[in-house]
């Protein structure tokens, strides 16, 4: 008897066996082993003909089926704990199939639930420090931090004042400044449009610098950007931190 298989993606030999058993509409506890083994081998042959790689697990199962088939022809040994009962050579396989089938069915249920709940959104926690009323619980803040902070302010200032002397144009934007500006904006706002980052009458240079800053922030994995179609507005979004 030969069955035409449609090319299905079976998860493993147990999956394939279950499929064959269901198709043949036979009792899982009383599998007609030679018939099923035959179909199983045909399927493997078919896969090979289609140049599909047959995973080793499938071959192991094929050997097992053939072994069970031959054992079925021999006188069956008695069970150790109950000598009146014969050991069915199919028993172990049946147990495995039943176990696997349980989870396979549950998988469908999980899949349904997953499809619902993956469409649900969660909001990130509010920035906590805004809610603090006193600092009595400050930890990790030391006087050294104060010194460090002031030092860095002073340093920052001294470099920026040097720059001021050299530069003539007032409206000069650097990528670094833009990155800082955007980062500051990101603290309070998680989503904004690209064009919110500069004036309506901003010159081309500023737009380019802003765009470079955005690219850099994307690279640093701080934001994601998205655009639904060409020339559409670019949406900039803060990446959720996993803290």
């Amino acid at each position, binding site marked *: 008897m030969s069955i035409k298989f449609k090319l299905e993606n079976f998860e493993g030999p147990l999956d394939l066996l279950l499929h064959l058993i269901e198709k043949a509409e036979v009792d899982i506890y009383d599998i007609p082993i030679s018939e099923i083994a035959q179909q199983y081998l045909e399927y493997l042959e078919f896969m090979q003909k289609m140049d599909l790689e047959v995973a080793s697990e499938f071959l192991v199962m094929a050997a097992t089926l053939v072994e069970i088939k031959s054992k079925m022809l021999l006188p069956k040994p008695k069970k150790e704990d109950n000598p009146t009962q014969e050991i069915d050579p199919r028993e172990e396989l049946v147990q495995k199939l039943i176990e*696997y089938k349980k989870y396979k069915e549950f998988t469908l249920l999980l899949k349904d639930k997953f499809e619902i709940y993956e469409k649900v*959104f969660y909001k990130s926690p509010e920035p906590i420090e805004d809610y603090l009323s006193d600092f009595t619980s400050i930890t990790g803040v030391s006087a050294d931090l104060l010194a460090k902070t002031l030092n860095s302010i002073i340093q920052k200032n001294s470099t920026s004042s040097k720059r001021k002397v050299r530069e003539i144009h007032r409206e000069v934007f650097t990528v670094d400044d833009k990155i800082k500006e955007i980062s500051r904006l990101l603290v309070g706002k998680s989503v904004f449009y690209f064009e919110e980052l500069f004036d309506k009458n901003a010159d081309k240079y500023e737009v380019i610098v802003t765009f470079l800053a955005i690219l850099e922030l994307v690279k640093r994995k701080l934001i994601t950007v998205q655009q639904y179609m060409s020339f559409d507005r670019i949406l900039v979004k803060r990446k959720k931190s996993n803290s």
Partner: protein
Amino acid sequence: MDIKEIKSVIEGLLYVAGDAVSLKELSHVLAIDESTVKKIINQMMDTYNEDKRGIQIIEVNSSYQYCTRPEHYEYIERLVKPQTRQGLSQAALETLSIVAYKQPITKAQIDYIRGVKSESSISRLQDKELIFEAGRLDSPGRPMIYCTTDNFLKLFGLKNLQELPPLQETSAEEA
């Protein structure tokens, strides 16, 4: 505080937290015993659902959390960004369902039940924070054991592991 006000405070708390807030914390913050808080939250959950509010409360392992409704998905996605959602493969789902019921479980045990190697499924499930390495079994080879995470419960709309439907002892007719 009357019940109405308690509910109002809980709303504020869940909003600010964003994350799941445990019943214990809520009880502590409100200075009301856990079972009363639980009752009140259950009422809130019902009201939210009856009123078809845009936010719902979900329970995960005795913690509560706001989330949006799946049916508003398309609008919210338009505002935020398409979530990086690549569904789970059949192999990953199978592995996940086995871990869910059999946890703690080793890779070898999963392989045995599925009849195939589950390595890549396991690592994908870990990446998605649906299962985690819960330690090592004190047996030869000290194999790693796996359990499901709270994130698993959340993503599958389960309150806790006890809510997993009982596995049926299947018979062939059902197939």
